[in-house]
């Protein structure tokens, strides 16, 4: 059971001596086991927010709570995955995914034993001993996510994980992610700028405004699960899409 709460977080930077707001007062509650997406134009502070949640940067104000416990500026409480796969090129896929376990002090042998079935079940069977450069972009992202899963935190942050993939692979990966989410019952906070992707995956979508980033609207995605390609043709899907498109266009216009 894990519930993530972002309480009044903001972040200001100084740029050429002028304070700039990257993230304005943000409040967000991610309930246990939910798939929540954040969507917004680029430069809307989505990544800043993620870095704050992951404890990598210090917020100018506000706190991050995990199950009521303050984890502001503490790393290692949530799984975090970026758009870049960030696999270590000198390690095999197997040794890449166990790095979180290694850091926790679990012996290599034991860690490998734990990782092998996971790789097999989630589409990386046969690639365990290959190096990342032998794999396609989608496969590498899978490895990246399995690494995050093996780290075994209840909350996972995904920062545009499929942003660099082609449309076909992206669709495949989305289904794959939903399958994993169902199997592992994680709480997922997902950043994307792809409307279809946000609707297809999420229970709940938060729309961010252009700089300074803050939540402009929240949309509940009431599409039935399990979802499939058919969902994309659903009327409700199209209505939601229209709604989001309008909101994001407004943002684009106001930023020009």
């Amino acid at each position, binding site marked *: 059971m894990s519930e993530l709460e972002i309480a009044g977080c903001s972040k200001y930077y100084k740029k050429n001596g002028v304070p700039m707001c990257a993230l304005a007062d943000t409040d967000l509650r991610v309930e246990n086991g939910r798939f929540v997406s954040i969507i917004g134009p680029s430069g809307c502070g989505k990544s800043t927010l993620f870095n704050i949640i992951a404890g990598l940067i210090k917020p100018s104000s506000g706190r991050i709570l995990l199950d009521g416990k303050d984890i502001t500026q503490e790393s290692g409480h949530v799984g975090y995955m970026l758009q870049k796969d*960030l696999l*270590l*090129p*000198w390690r095999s896929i197997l040794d890449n995914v166990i790095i979180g376990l290694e*850091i926790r002090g679990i012996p290599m042998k034991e860690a490998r034993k734990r990782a092998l079935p996971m790789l097999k079940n989630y589409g990386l069977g046969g690639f365990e001993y290959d*190096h990342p450069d032998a794999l396609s972009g989608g496969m590498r992202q899978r490895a990246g996510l399995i*690494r995050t899963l093996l*780290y075994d935190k209840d909350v996972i942050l995904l920062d545009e994980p499929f942003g660099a993939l082609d449309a076909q692979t992206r669709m495949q990966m989305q289904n794959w992610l939903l399958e994993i989410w169902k199997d592992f019952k994680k709480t997922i906070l997902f950043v994307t700028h792809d409307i279809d992707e946000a609707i297809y995956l999420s229970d709940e979508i938060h729309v961010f405004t252009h700089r300074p980033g803050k939540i402009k609207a929240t949309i509940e995605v009431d599409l039935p699960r399990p979802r499939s390609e058919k969902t994309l043709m659903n009327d409700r899907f199209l209505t939601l899409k229209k709604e989001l498109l309008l909101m994001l266009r407004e943002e684009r216009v106001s930023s020009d």
Partner: protein
Amino acid sequence: MPDKLKNNEPFIEDPTIQTTKLGRRAFVGQVLVGVIIIFLWEFLTRIGWLDSYYWSSPSTIVHTGWKAITQGTLLQDLAYTSGSTILGFVLGTAAGYILGLSFWWSELYSRIFEPYMIAFNAIPKLALAPVLVIMFGIGFDSKVILAFLMTIIVAAIAAYSGVQSVDRDLEKMLVSLGAKRRHVFMKVVVPTTIPWIVSILKINISLALAGTIVGEFISSRQGIGRMILYAGQVLDIDLVWVGVVVLSLLSIVMYLGTVWLEHALMKGRTPKS
């Protein structure tokens, strides 16, 4: 492949056959060129087109070399020179690598010492050789120290460049997985810098050899450098050539040694990752 097509057999391209073929041919060519050069050298000195007083000749070099081995101290000299070169190379490269890596730990510390590293690199270390010989004596130590000084900064600069090339996002990823600084160091920084240090091994082994030889030139009782200097002073030019040939062979052997070391260090990864 017309004959294969006749039998309705598909033609399967196998690039490995072509590469091995090419490799074999290149090897034959390489040997051939070497043989021709040696033959021409011998031939031209015999017919007098090249003055054998200055140029010696392959057969005389082999003959003189054999005499130096059996009656002289060539093998001891070789052991002396290669010993101080390898020791200086290993110590200098390792110390430089550690120094370069240490810059990762503190930005302040690296900022303070960076200009001094560059300044030290600019000093022509060989020019210091006479001082070093006075400081450390004419024995083995002064040669090792020269080889050490020749190699340490090259290694440090390479390692430092490697440290600067560490992907910040990789660091971030590891930290998000709960890593402490030492984890990042061991799992990202050291592996990232290995190709950088590997790329200067070949340079450093020849720098170490140059350092040793200059040390022997300045003052020494042993070593190939001393042998060459002595032979030049008594106008035994054949023996100078023997020294040059032996040094060339030594540096080829050490070069192959570093190639082997490169392979060992780069196992399981593509170069320039």
